[in-house]
């Protein structure tokens, strides 16, 4: 299995609070991604990174920001969480094989 972890695995927070999710990899892969999974939508790309300090927006980036200060870590921040951001969040990594490996997911509930 690819060395990819996410923390926390579960989080409950209140509307308006900031939230940061962490993705950590031990594979030294160049690309890292954040997706959200919602019923009826599959997985949708939020942001991605193609190198340290190199990030770009995905399909559903509004309300989210990301940072990548080291190859191994990719952070997703919700500056002010809303109930519409209740979801399961997946991190993924990709190297030279054109195959993405997924983390275990984080279930976030915004009350």
């Amino acid at each position, binding site marked *: 299995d690819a060395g990819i972890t996410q923390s926390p695995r579960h989080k409950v927070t209140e509307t308006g609070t900031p939230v940061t999710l962490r993705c950590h990899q031990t594979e030294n892969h160049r690309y890292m*991604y954040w997706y959200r999974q919602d019923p009826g939508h599959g*997985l949708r790309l939020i942001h991605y990174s193609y190198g340290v300090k190199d990030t770009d927006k995905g399909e559903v980036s509004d309300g989210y920001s990301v940072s990548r200060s080291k190859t191994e870590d990719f952070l997703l921040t919700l500056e002010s969480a809303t109930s519409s951001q209740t979801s399961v969040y997946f991190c993924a990594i990709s190297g030279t094989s054109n195959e993405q490996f997924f983390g275990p997911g984080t279930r976030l509930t915004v009350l």
Partner: protein
Amino acid sequence: AQTVTQSQPEMSVQEAETVTLSCTYDTSENNYYLFWYKQPPSRQMILVIRQEAYKQQNATENRFSVNFQKAAKSFSLKISDSQLGDTAMYFCAFMNLKGAQKLVFGQGTRLTINP
């Protein structure tokens, strides 16, 4: 922009039967990959099979095979001799080989294998 459509929200078959999951996609690109991912109740995303668009031969992995029709933009997954452990959500996904290897997913098909 690419889109991926899975028109079967749910399917159910008996153990040992063969089942086919449908997927269509829309793209103007010529170089891409297609994937099927399995998501069991554990929530882990597991790669089942992948197909390179430049290959005419359909990919197979043990009991899993695909029917890739490039002109029709169709990519179905066939599961032979289905097992209880095949019960899961299945997602079709498209990857444009230009740029950052981003995946575009379909909505998913919930497959239940009944004993």
